[in-house]
C-alpha cells in the first residue's frame, strides 16, 4: 500500500532522526576542517614571520659589518629551501623553491588562475622581506578528503553512521510495531466489509487504545453476526410460512417488480388470465379496492378467486399486498348445497300440491268414467270425454312423477361394472339414436361402482336422452368413465347446441325446460337419484359446441 500508515510514520521519523545526525556530522566535519585550516595557516604565517624576523636580524648584522649581505642572503635562502612548498621571488624577479628556479608561468597560483572549488580550497600566504625586495609565497590547498582530516574525522563519520543505523533500525521497528496492529485491524475490517467469515480470526490482545478498538470491533461484529443469524432465522421462517400457504400473495412495489410467493406463482402458471389480470394491477388501483371476487374461464371451466387488497403505508415507497385464493371448489359446493335445498323445498311443495290434487283428480276420473257409462253420449261427446280421461291420466302421470321426485327413494346399491350398464343402454338406444342421426360411442374403461342398478340405468338413460335431444341435427354422443383415487366418474358428452351459463345454473330445477314437450323434471330426477346414491353431478357446456355431464360415484362399499 502506497499510503500505508507505516510509511506515514516511517518517513517523517526517518527525516527527523537522520537530519540531526547528518547536521551534527557535517558541522563537526566543517568545524574540524576550519580549525585545521586555521592551524595550518597560522603555522605557515608564523614560519614566514620568523623568516622575516631572522632576515631583519641578519640585516642588522650586515649593517654592523659582522657579515656580508651575500652571506646573510645565502643563510636565509638555506632556511627557505628547507621548507617544502615555500617560494621566494627575488628583487630581480627570479622565482625559486627548494633551491630550484621555477618559471612563474608554470605556477597557476602565481598567475591568479588557482581557483577554489567546492571540495578544495586554495590560498597563498605572502610575506615581504622589504630590505632586500624579496617576496615569500606559500601556496596552500585544503580539502575534505586529503591530509589528516579523514583520520581525525573518521570516528565522527563512523559514529554518524553508527547512530544513523541504530536510529533507522529503531525507526523501522517502531513504525512497524505501531502500524502493525492498525494494519491488522484494517485487514480485519476489510474482511468484514467483504462479508467473509471472521470467526477464528485473531487480532491482537493489546491493552492500549488499539486493543480497545480491536476488542470492541470484535464484540460488535460478533453481536452483528448473532443478530444476522436471528434475522436470517426469522426470514427463513417467514419465507417458509409464506411459501407454504395456499393463498397467493403479491407484493406490488411502486417503481419496481412485484414479488410473488410460491402459491401465487403456481396459480399464475396454471391460469394465464389470472396472471394477466394481476400483472395489470397498479398501486393506484389497489388503493381503491378492498375485496372482490374474480371469475373467468380457465380451460373452459369457470373459476372463482377471492381477491383482497391492502396498502402498506410504512415505508417511503408505496407498496400494497394483494392476496387471492382459488374459491372455485368452494363455490361449487355452495352452489350444490343451494341447489339441493332449493330442490328439496320445491319437491316438498310439489308433493304437497300433488297429494292434494291427486284425491280430487281420482274423484273426477271415477265420476267421468261413471258418467260416460251411464249417459248415452253422442260420438262427438264420447271423444270429448275420452280426451278428458286422457288429460286426467296425463295430470295423474305428472303427479306420479312429482311424487316420485320428491319422495326419498329406497336404494339398493351393489357393485356393478359401468361398462356393462353403458353397453346395454347403447344397445337399447341404438334405434332411437339412428333415427336422430346420432352416433353413440362407448369407450370402455373397465371401472366398477357401488350404486343401485336401476337408479344408475335411469340416470344414464335420462342423460343420454337429454344429449340426443340437444342434437336436433345429429352428432356424437360419447360415453366413458375413469377412476381417480376412490371415485369413478362417468362422462356423457354430446356435440349438441350447448348452453349459456344462465341456463346451466337452472337445468336441475324442476319444471325448467327449454323444450315445449318436456316436463322439466328429467334432470331434477337425475340430480335426486345421483345425490341419493352418494354421488355428485356436474355439467360443463359451451354454447354451440356441446355439453358434458359428469357423474361421480364412490367405488367401494365402505364409502357408503
Amino acid at each position: 500500500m502506497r499510503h500505508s500508515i507505516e510509511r506515514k510514520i516511517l518517513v517523517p521519523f526517518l527525516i527527523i532522526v537522520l537530519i540531526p545526525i547528518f547536521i551534527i556530522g557535517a558541522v563537526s566535519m566543517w568545524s574540524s576542517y576550519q580549525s585545521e585550516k586555521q592551524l595550518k595557516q597560522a603555522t605557515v604565517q608564523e614560519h614566514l614571520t620568523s623568516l622575516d624576523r631572522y632576515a631583519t636580524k641578519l640585516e642588522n648584522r650586515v649593517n654592523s659589518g659582522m657579515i656580508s649581505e651575500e652571506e646573510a642572503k645565502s643563510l636565509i635562502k638555506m632556511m627557505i629551501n628547507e621548507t617544502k612548498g615555500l617560494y621566494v621571488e627575488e628583487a630581480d624577479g627570479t622565482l625559486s623553491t627548494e633551491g630550484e628556479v621555477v618559471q612563474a608561468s608554470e605556477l597557476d597560483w602565481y598567475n591568479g588562475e588557482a581557483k577554489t572549488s567546492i571540495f578544495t580550497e586554495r590560498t597563498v600566504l605572502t610575506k615581504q622581506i622589504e630590505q632586500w625586495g624579496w617576496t615569500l609565497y606559500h601556496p596552500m590547498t585544503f580539502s575534505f578528503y586529503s591530509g589528516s582530516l579523514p583520520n581525525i574525522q573518521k570516528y565522527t563519520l563512523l559514529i554518524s553512521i553508527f547512530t544513523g543505523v541504530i536510529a533507522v533500525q529503531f525507526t523501522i521497528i517502531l513504525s512497524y510495531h505501531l502500524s502493525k496492529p492498525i494494519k491488522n485491524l484494517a485487514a480485519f475490517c476489510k474482511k468484514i466489509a467483504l462479508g467473509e467469515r471472521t470467526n477464528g480470526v485473531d487480532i491482537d490482545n493489546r491493552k492500549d487504545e488499539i486493543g480497545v478498538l480491536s476488542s470492541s470491533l470484535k464484540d460488535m461484529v460478533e453481536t452483528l453476526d448473532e443478530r444476522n443469524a436471528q434475522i436470517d432465522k426469522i426470514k427463513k421462517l417467514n419465507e417458509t410460512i409464506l411459501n407454504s400457504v395456499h393463498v397467493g400473495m403479491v407484493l406490488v412495489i411502486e417503481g419496481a417488480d412485484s414479488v410473488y410467493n410460491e402459491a401465487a406463482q403456481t396459480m399464475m402458471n396454471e391460469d394465464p388470465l389470472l396472471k394477466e389480470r394481476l400483472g395489470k394491477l397498479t398501486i393506484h388501483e389497489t388503493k381503491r379496492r378492498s375485496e372482490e371476487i374474480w371469475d373467468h374461464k380457465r380451460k373452459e371451466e369457470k373459476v372463482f378467486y377471492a381477491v383482497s387488497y391492502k396498502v402498506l403505508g410504512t415505508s417511503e415507497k408505496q407498496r400494497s399486498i394483494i392476496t387471492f385464493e382459488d374459491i372455485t371448489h368452494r363455490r361449487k359446493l355452495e352452489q350444490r348445497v343451494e341447489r339441493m335445498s332449493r330442490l328439496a323445498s320445491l319437491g316438498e311443495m310439489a308433493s304437497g300440491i300433488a297429494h292434494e290434487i291427486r284425491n280430487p283428480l281420482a274423484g273426477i276420473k271415477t265420476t267421468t268414467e261413471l258418467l260416460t257409462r251411464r249417459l248415452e253420449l253422442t260420438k262427438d261427446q264420447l271423444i270429448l270425454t275420452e280426451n278428458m280421461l286422457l288429460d286426467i291420466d296425463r295430470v295423474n302421470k305428472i303427479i306420479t312423477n312429482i311424487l316420485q321426485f320428491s319422495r326419498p327413494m329406497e336404494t339398493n346399491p351393489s357393485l356393478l361394472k359401468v361398462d356393462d350398464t353403458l353397453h346395454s343402454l347403447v344397445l337399447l338406444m341404438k334405434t332411437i339414436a339412428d333415427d336422430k342421426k346420432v352416433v353413440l360411442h362407448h369407450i370402455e374403461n373397465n371401472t366398477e361402482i357401488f350404486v343401485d342398478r336401476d337408479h344408475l340405468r335411469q340416470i344414464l338413460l335420462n342423460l343420454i336422452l337429454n344429449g340426443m335431444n340437444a342434437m336436433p341435427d345429429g352428432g356424437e354422443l360419447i360415453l366413458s368413465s375413469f377412476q381417480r383415487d376412490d371415485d369413478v366418474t362417468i362422462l356423457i358428452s354430446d356435440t349438441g347446441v350447448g348452453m349459456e351459463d344462465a341456463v346451466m345454473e337452472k337445468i336441475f330445477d324442476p319444471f325448467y325446460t327449454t323444450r315445449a314437450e318436456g316436463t322439466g323434471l328429467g334432470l331434477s330426477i337425475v340430480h335426486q337419484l345421483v345425490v341419493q346414491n352418494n354421488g355428485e353431478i356436474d355439467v360443463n357446456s359451451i354454447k354451440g359446441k356441446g355439453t358434458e355431464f359428469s357423474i361421480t360415484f364412490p367405488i367401494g362399499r365402505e364409502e357408503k
Partner: protein
Amino acid sequence: MDELLYLSVFLIYTIAILILGKHGFDKTDELKGYFLAGRNLPLFPSVASFCATWFSAASLLGLPGLIYEGGVSVIWTTAIAWLLGIIGLFFLASKLYTYNVVTVPEFFLVRYDSKFLQIWVGVILSVSYLLYVVIQIRGFGIVVSQMLDIPYTVSVFLIYLFVLYTTFGGLHSVARTDIFHFCLILFGSILGGVFIVKEIGGIRELATGLSTLDQSGSASYLALFPEGGLSFWALVSAFFSLGLGVAANPQYAVRILSSRSKQVALKMVGTSTVFLVLIYFSIFVIGIGSRVLDPNVPFTSTDEIYPFIIAYLLETPLKGVLLISVVAAAISTANSQLLIMATSFVYDITLPIRKKKALDLKVISWTRWMIFIFATFSLVIAFTPPQGIVQFSGHIWGIIAVSLFFPLYGGLYTNVNHRQALLSTFGGLITYILAFLLIPNALQPVYHPVLPSLIIAGILFFLKGRGRLNASFH
C-alpha cells in the same frame, strides 16, 4: 583515503540492508511465513539463500588463510569435505520436502512421534548455533575493525545491529538480504582472485612465483597431498565432521523446506553446487596467490591474512567490495542461524513444554524476543572469542553430525522407532564429549572425536534388543 572508501562502501551496504531487510516485516503474520517464507521461495532466491548461508566467515576468512599457511592440500580437509555433504542434501531434499513441518526439530516429532526428541534437537541447535553465531560475529568484527581501523568491540556491535535487524523480519527478510549477500560473496571472491593474480602480474607470474615457492624450502606447498601422504584417518575425520555436519545441518534443511516445490529444492541443491565450486576455486586462488604475493605476512591467526592482503597489498578502489563480501558471508550465515536458534527455542522447546496452544502472532513475537536475547548473548561471548575459527567450527559440525545425522536420514529412509533414535543421539553426543576429553589435542585433527562417536551413534541407531539389526530400509 582507504578508510574513506571503506566507509562509503560500508554506508552503501548499510542502506541496502536496511531497505532489503524491511521487506520481510510485512509478510510475517503466520508461522510458516515467518519461519519458512511461506514455503514458496522460487529457485533463484533459494539458491542465493543456500549459497549465502553456506559461506560463512569461516569459509571466506579462514580458508584463504589456511591455504596460505598450509598449502594446497588443505582443501581435502575443508572445501572437499564440506562439498561432500551436498550429496547428503540431495537425499534429504527428495524425502524431507513432503513433510508438512515448520521447523527441523518438528520433523522429529512428526516422524518419531516423540516430543522429547523434538525438544532435545531444539536444545542441540540452540546451543551449537549460539557458538557458531559467535564465530560469525567474530569474523565480521575482525574484518570491519581492519577495514575501518576501529576497535574490535565497536565493529562487533555493528554486526549485532545488522544481524538483529535482518532476522527480525523472519525468513522473508533473511532470504531477501541473502540475495544481495550472495551477489557480494560471488563477486567478492571472484574479484579477489582476479585482483590478486593481477597484482602478481598475471597467471604466468603466478606460476613462476609458485615454482619459486616450491624451490625455496616449502616443498610440499603445491603438492595436492601433504608430505608423507594424507592420513586416511584425517580425511575420514574431516569428512565425518564437516561433510556429515553439513548434510545434517538444519540450516540447509530449512532451505529445502522453504522452497516452492520439491523440484525447486532439488534444483536448488544442484545449482548451488556449481556456484559453490566456483567460489571455492576463487578462494583457492586467493589463498595461493596471497602466498606468492607476500610469503611473509605477519599474523597471529590465519584469519587475519586475507584482510591484511586486501588492505595493504591490493591497490584498487574495489577492494572495499572484497572486504564487504566477508561481512556479507558472516551476516548471511549468522542471521539464518540466529533465526533457527530462536525458532528452535520457542517453537521446539518452549511450546511443547508449555503444552498450551498459542496464537501465531504471539509465537512470532516471542521468537523476535529470543532473537534479541540470543544475539545479545552471542555478542557478549564474541567480546572474548575462542581462538581458531575453522577448528572451532569443526566441533560444532561434529556435534551436529553425531547427534542429528542418523535420526534425520535414518528417519527418512528406515522404519526405526524413536527409542533407537534417542539412544543414537545421546550415545553419539556422550561418546563425542568423552573422545574430545580423552584424545590429545595434537592428535585430534587426525583422530577427530567424531570418528568413534559417529560409529557408536550408528550402531545404537540400527541395533535393537540383543544385538540384532532390526531396521529395514524403505
